[in-house]
């Protein structure tokens, strides 16, 4: 199947022009349509990113000596079991056939990362006068010499927004996607009430941060030895190991205590997938004493 030629069956945002650094393999997401008939193919092109993906996946395989963790299976199971998020699709997608056959020998970790922070941006669609906003709105601070935006805070959901004079806004601090959108709408309403013709264009979640605890101590020295290409562990600089996962593109901070912070995700499923990928690896480096 020529994935590079037939771009129309692909959903938006997954088309990768030749020579791009993104993997050709489509990232399975809940927004993908049914019956696209796409079966995940082995990676054909040989750009370095896909080579690193292969390496990471091979290392995961070696780690377990079992069937690869079913990325697509686990994603299907987690998208149906998300708490606090209205499921978009209630049934798992049926035409999906995984790369490796048979059931996974290792079950999922049973731990769900909790989202701690969501950063989103929205365009209010009109130029704003920051001085009037700062003077008339409550809980707004504006110090043009220090930073060129108004910093506004609301209590429910507890978030902070940076509002720029171009009309663009950054909303941080929400704990879920729905809350982030709600908070952004509230800020837009505040701006609207102050007399500006605010709209709500291009709301996009830019970053999601999650954290969880694997409940056992981890040997970071062992992890950095075997996963050298992806890990960076410098105790002088930072006490945690910085693991840059290639697919999905997530950065994990792994600490000796067993706490893991995942960041860099655009959708919730990426965080879950990344944690499912790293959990068997961490189990392999559990401290025995």
């Amino acid at each position, binding site marked *: 199947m020529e994935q590079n030629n037939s771009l129309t069956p692909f959903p938006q945002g997954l088309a990768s022009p030749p020579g791009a650094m993104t993997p050709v393999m489509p990232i399975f997401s809940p927004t993908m349509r049914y019956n696209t008939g796409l079966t995940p193919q082995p990676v054909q092109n040989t750009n370095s990113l896909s080579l690193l993906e292969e390496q990471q996946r091979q290392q995961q395989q070696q780690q377990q000596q079992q069937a690869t963790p079913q990325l697509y299976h686990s994603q299907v199971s987690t998208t149906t079991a998300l708490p606090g998020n209205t499921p978009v699709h209630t049934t798992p997608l049926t035409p999906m056939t995984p790369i490796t056959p048979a059931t996974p020998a290792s079950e999922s970790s049973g731990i769900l990362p909790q989202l701690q922070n969501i950063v989103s941006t929205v365009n209010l669609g009109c130029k704003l006068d920051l001085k009037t906003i700062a003077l008339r709105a409550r809980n707004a601070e504006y110090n043009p010499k220090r930073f060129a935006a108004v910093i506004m805070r609301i209590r429910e959901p507890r978030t902070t927004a940076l509002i720029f004079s171009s009309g663009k806004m950054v909303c941080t601090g929400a704990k879920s996607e729905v809350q982030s959108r709600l908070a952004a709408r509230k800020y837009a309403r505040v701006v609207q009430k102050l007399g500006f013709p605010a709209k709500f264009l291009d709301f996009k979640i830019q970053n999601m941060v999650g954290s969880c605890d694997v409940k056992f*101590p981890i040997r970071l*020295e062992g992890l*950095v*030895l075997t996963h*050298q*290409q992806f890990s*960076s*562990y*410098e*105790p*002088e*600089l930072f*006490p945690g190991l910085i693991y840059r996962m290639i697919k999905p593109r997530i950065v994990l901070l792994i*600490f*000796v*205590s067993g706490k893991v912070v995942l960041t860099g995700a655009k959708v919730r499923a990426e965080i879950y997938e990344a944690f499912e990928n790293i959990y068997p690896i961490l189990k392999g480096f559990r*401290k025995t*004493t």
Partner: protein
Amino acid sequence: ILKTSRQINSLPKVQCPNHPDAILVEDYRAGDMICPECGLVVGDRVIDVGSEWRTFTNEKATNDPSRVGDAQNPLLNGGDLSTMISKGTGAASFDEFGNSKYQNRRTMSSADRAMLNAFKEITTMSDRINLPRNIIDRTNNLFKQVYEQKSLKGRSNDAIASACLYIACRQEGVPRTFKEICAVSRISKKEIGRCFKLILKALETSVDLITTGDFMSRFCSNLGLPKQVQMAATYIARKAVELDLVPGRSPISVAAAAIYMASQASAEKKTQKEIGDIAGVADVTIRQSYRLIYPRAADLFPPDFKFDTPVDKLPQL
């Protein structure tokens, strides 16, 4: 077979006509190349590559008569064979106002001027902490690789040089802490750390993890501790890491705490402040790590250690 070998060795080769395989002996006093088999003088008037003058160093010798200058460093420079005209000597090179007539000495090798500057900076930094020549050479090589790659072009050259110095020390097996490199460089630890990570990514290399033993000899000799105490401290630190008494602590802090424990048990007692100054750790950090290793102090000392202060009399902080 003879034909193919002649194709490979197409350069004219001086050889004896009677004994083509004989390796010629060079007689440099007469400038001859002599065949050892038959004694035929094959090549004469061979250019003597020895030095022109035998210069002995004595003070206030007049101008060095050697006309060849320093050895080139082709590995690091662009390898240019350009000619440089130096400033003139004698009265004729000055015009009427006292300015020199020939002034062009500006653009010697503009492309590599930044690199030469960086090498000078690296040498200066290394001299401050007395690093041997092999580390300096390795640093220069790393810098050259990074500079040619241009992936870190936006970063300050001094920062890249400091980071290269740090990596070179690590690669040679004698790591220096970031704080030690900061002490000889004007760049902040944060920036050196950032450049360090970027360089590792750019050159696609990795470095070994630091261990407590790497720093023992340096810290202990800076503190003036005897060899017994140094060996005891090394043993304590290694044992502490093996028994996982200090999870998540930087190896430098563990090393400093081990030195403190060893020195307090011996005749040469050092305070936490002194150790903190040498190691670059805060004395509260030493205190924290010491509190973690104190409960198992009896197990951590080497079996043949001579206690000046017994284990139960060690200070408890």
